[in-house]
């Protein structure tokens, strides 16, 4: 009898230990601790209007009912997605040509590196003069932020096409564009994904900055700025959460597609 109870309690102990050692448990505990520290430190040290977990939960219904909230999400994230697709299309073409044709590379490299390294925020004011204070300026910034990171990564990838592939293609009398679009692009997919990841992050930042500086109506940047400016931090923070989830969503999507479509690729240097 004693042997049986001992045995079952031992089994319980191992399942308990397994739970305690599991990753999910660690994540939940650490998450709770972070929220607690945040809540308590704000309760004790900060003014009433500062964002804190309970306040954010309380603010959630009113934000969701806010007439400008969902249109703002749709407006901002829609523009980012459209801009990324356009940047991707042209960025891939220019990048492949730069990676495969030396003359093109030498003609453009200064501009691509320069515009890539330029903090895109800095040109928002000038773009406002050129494109007015609305969605066009924001789109210009998104394209600007996305295009050059894709070009740089794509040209790195196209340059790294294994020479054996190209030799075989040449031996079968492939035309140059067959090499560019049939071989260089697929073999550069890991670089391209790294470029897209970079471009997405930068485009999101660019879009928000443009919205904040220009004051694009019905946009997330504007929503955050207005709510935070009116000391409604809890409400504004809900919008920040949406942006964070969008950022993570893109990251997960790219990781998943690497795993599914590029099983041959081992994660090494993750592009520029």
């Amino acid at each position, binding site marked *: 009898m004693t042997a049986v109870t001992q045995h079952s309690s031992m089994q319980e102990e191992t399942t308990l230990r397994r739970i305690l050692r599991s990753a999910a448990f660690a*994540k939940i505990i650490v998450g709770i601790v972070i929220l607690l520290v945040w809540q308590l430190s704000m309760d004790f040290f900060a003014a009433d209007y500062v964002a804190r977990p309970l306040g954010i939960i309380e603010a959630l219904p009113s934000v969701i009912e806010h007439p400008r909230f969902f249109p703002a999400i749709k407006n901002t994230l829609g523009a980012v997605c459209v801009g990324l697709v356009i940047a991707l299309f042209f960025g891939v073409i220019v990048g492949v040509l730069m990676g495969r044709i030396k003359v093109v590379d030498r003609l453009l490299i*200064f501009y691509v590196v320069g515009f890539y390294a330029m903090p895109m925020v*800095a040109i928002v004011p000038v773009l406002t003069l050129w494109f007015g204070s609305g969605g066009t300026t924001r789109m210009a910034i998104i394209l600007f932020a996305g295009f050059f990171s894709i070009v740089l990564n794509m040209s790195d990838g196209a340059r790294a096409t294994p020479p054996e592939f190209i030799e075989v293609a040449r031996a079968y009398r492939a035309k140059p564009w067959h090499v560019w679009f049939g071989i260089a692009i697929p073999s550069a997919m890991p670089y391209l994904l790294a470029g897209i990841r970079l471009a997405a992050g930068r485009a999101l930042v660019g879009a928000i900055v443009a919205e*904040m500086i220009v004051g694009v109506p019905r946009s997330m940047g504007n929503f955050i*700025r207005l709510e935070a400016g009116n000391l409604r*931090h809890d409400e504004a923070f809900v919008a920040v959460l949406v942006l964070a989830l969008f*950022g993570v969503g893109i990251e997960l999507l790219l990781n998943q597609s690497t795993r599914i479509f590029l099983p041959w690729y081992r994660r090494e240097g993750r592009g520029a």
Partner: protein
Amino acid sequence: MIDMNKKWARFATYAVGLLIGAGMWQYFGARGNQLASASLTETFSRFIRLIENGELPTAVANSMQLYVAGFSAAIIAASALGLLMSRIRFLRVGIENYVMLLYATPMVAVVPFISSLLGPFFMAKFVVVFLFGFFPVLYNTLEGGRSLRPELVEVATSFRSGEMALWRDLLIPYTLPFILTGVRQGAGRALVGVVASEFLVSSSGMGGMIRYYDGNYIIEGVFATVIVLTAIGVLLMWLGRLLEDRFAAWRGLNR
């Protein structure tokens, strides 16, 4: 057919590329609306003037002070925190996803909070730059900690290595290349943070100059400042790459 690999041919194509760009800038800049564009020569003469009267050097020094203060604090804090977490498995596993969340969050979104909390002062800008630089470094340090093979730690502890020695001889050298990847990623982001905070928190440095000249429709002033800013960006990118490559050999070969 000309051999494009000859040295002179290479320089010729670079030169042609630059000349075409400069020509286009001059042409469109001079023909465009004077309130919204500026040509190459106008920008250049304004650039000389801004250097002579000391405005640009002062602004650069001002912005770089903010950059160095915020980003170096971010590097130190993030790498220390990341290393500590790599030693405590529970913490590392527990916090990874939250760090990823913050790494992917566009940090500009929190600028309005910071400026309304800390006011239009240096401290607010410092915090903004810090946040822009902090998460790339932390994220990459944690990735280094995750890839640290337990066998190495086992060998070290079975040779009775103390915690100090373990950090000095294993943990820090192993994670350094990862930290430097984070530093390279953060270097560009922190520069964006500098300009964003100078735009959104309070006008100062190069961001302030851009806003001032833009507001007064003196576009050559804007262009001159943006070009200096771009040169700084290229320099930082190059420095980061150099630093990363220098220690890249320290990465374990068979990961």
